[in-house]
């Protein structure tokens, strides 16, 4: 078995175990599995980091003098996205962990790892740009930005579930492990803010890279335009929440809707099959 395959199974196993523990924690009255569940996500994240290194260096070794970054196929990009999600959850939002959140996040991590088991066609255009620092920064910040938006989406879904439970007066025990509405709202807009910063950084670094590579600040491609639209939409949301004090379910619903733009930017634009971003998920 190859090292990368072994690591892939390990990472998936660890995230899956974390998911099982989060489920046990959610149904139990005491907080006895939460710590261990988070540990499994943490160890899974470390193994995942090793996997990314292994993927990077295994290709770089087979084709000397090339640097490979594991985002050239759908499988790699999907796995890298899962890693970014875990990174944002564990590092940037470390103080805001909760059992309900882990319960939703852990299976998402597992799901995003599944495509990594299948072979996909790589985009040959990308390989030659991996030596460009701006290009790498662009990719990294874009992935982290998308991960932040994905986390805000999960929190929004939890918010709406809890809101519905409170409105319908369902038994308290079915949602007693949920964070409060206010806590979830804080989480949603904190992750959106991070997402805005990171996606903004991705747009700027992308512009600098295209300037150096193609002598233009913007590629007229669906992905570039969609990214700007996404960034603008989230900026409007943040403006209304932070400066106009818009609170509650409606603004959360809007943020949930904005995630459709993220999905379109991340996955949908690749379907147009034009430009450099083809296959760059």
């Amino acid at each position, binding site marked *: 078995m190859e090292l990368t395959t072994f690591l892939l199974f390990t990472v998936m196993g660890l995230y899956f175990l974390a998911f099982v523990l989060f489920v046990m924690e959610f149904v139990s*009255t005491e907080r006895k599995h939460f710590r261990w569940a988070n540990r499994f996500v943490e160890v899974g994240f470390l193994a995942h980091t090793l996997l990314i290194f292994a993927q990077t260096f295994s290709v770089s070794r087979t084709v000397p003098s090339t640097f490979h970054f594991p985002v050239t196929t759908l499988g790699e990009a999907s796995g890298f996205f899962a890693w970014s999600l875990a990174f944002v959850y564990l590092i940037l939002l470390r103080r805001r962990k909760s059992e309900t959140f882990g319960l939703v996040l852990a299976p998402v991590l597992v799901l995003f790892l599944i495509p990594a088991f299948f072979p996909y066609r790589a985009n040959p255009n990308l390989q030659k740009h991996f030596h460009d620092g701006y290009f790498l920064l662009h990719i990294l910040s874009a992935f982290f930005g998308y991960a932040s938006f994905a986390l805000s989406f999960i929190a929004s879904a939890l918010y709406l579930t*809890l*809101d519905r439970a*409170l*409105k319908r*007066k369902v*038994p*308290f*025990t079915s*949602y*007693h492990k*949920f*964070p*409060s*509405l*206010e*806590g979830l709202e804080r989480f949603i807009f904190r992750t959106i803010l991070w997402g805005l910063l990171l996606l903004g950084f991705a747009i700027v670094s992308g512009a600098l890279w295209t300037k150096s590579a193609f002598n233009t600040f913007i590629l007229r491609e669906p992905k570039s335009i969609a990214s700007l639209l996404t960034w603008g939409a989230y900026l409007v949301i943040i403006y209304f929440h932070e400066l*106009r*004090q*818009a*609170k*509650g*379910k*409606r*603004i959360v619903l809007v943020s949930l809707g904005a995630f459709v733009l993220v999905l379109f930017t991340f996955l949908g634009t690749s379907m147009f099959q034009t430009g450099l971003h083809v296959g760059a998920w």
Partner: protein
Amino acid sequence: MDLVCIGLSHKNCPVEIREKIAFSESALSQALVKMREIDGLRECFVLSTCNRVELYGRGFLGIEESLVRFLADFHELEGCAYRSYLYQYRGREVAEHLFRVASGLESLVVGENEIYGQIRRAFRLANELGSLDSILYQLIERALRAGKRVRSETKISEGAVSVSSIAVELAEKIFGKLTGERVLILGTGKMSELTMKHLVKAGAGEITVASRTYERALELSQKHGAKPIGFDGWLSALRTSDIVISSTSAPHSIVKFEDVKAMMIARRHKPLFFIDIAVPRDVEPRVGEIDDVYLYDIDDLKTVSEENLHLRKKEISKCEAIVEHELELFDQWYEFLEAGPVIQKLTAYFDDIVKTEMTKATSKFKGKERELETLIQKIKAGLLHIPIEELKESAKTGSIERYLETLHSLFRLEEHGPTETKNEKKTSERDDPSASFTKAHS
């Protein structure tokens, strides 16, 4: 066991009788002091809450009557029909009852936590006044342990059951840990006052009280450091409030859908939590349909309470298993008490032999008396270790009597050591009957 308990509780005794028999905090110390004067009563403990009054003690058969008389004399209950409500427990029943009480299994609201604190306070007081010695001390301590285990190992205390604590729980689900949320009180009913107190204790901030009678709003505000307003000002106060507790006696709803809808736009949909405990309801039910408004009326709160109570009741069998286990441990401890005098006599038996032999050999060990003494004590401890462990084991299986008889006849223990009675022994050794042995050998 010579344990005894008499008392009455919410289960069969009406509150009119309970309030006559209850001991106020200041009277409790006095009662304990007087109780100790009862002839034949060794150790005493009083548990007095709004739902039960119980006197615990140790004494021979018939002491129950003295306790009943004490109760009547202390409260001057001549002519009061309290006797028919009294229950009595003796021996192991007392332990079982107290363990169940401490676990909240006998409470009006099953699994409530207050009783645990009440027993602990009563225990501390009785101990400070010297009313407790070996058996009752152990009994209460173990009852508290059972209560603690029941609450930490089962879900018996989970989910709020009182209207006010449910309100706090729900408020925390909406606003998170309460940190200065503004509360508006409409009407000055007892229930809204209680709910407000709970919210403030949980961390709610500024309180505004609106009442049709301004004097009542003022009175309640002065009591709780709130801000009184006239009733016509409640709608503008609503704009800045997060939690509204409503309990007016208005015959129709006063909080209208249109008003709140408009208000929510002005509030930019900042969540608003209504607790409507008035009958008839103060808040139009449609108000609950507005986004970010959470409306709970008295029936909703009662439903939550019933659901939680139902869940608690499902835990009772688990709690009873814990109580039974703790009772078994108490039984074992109690059984082992019987071994106390025998162990003391056995130690005395060995001491006699050692003393005789030491006197004979003093000249041979001149200058090394201390080393010799240490050596002898070590040998003695080694010899007694296994018999004592065996006695402890036999206490668990209930076969200790047979062992004690054997020891008596093997070593003719009647001829050795002090001839304390079992009861005297019990009062002198609080925790462990082998303590005297351990002390002698430490």
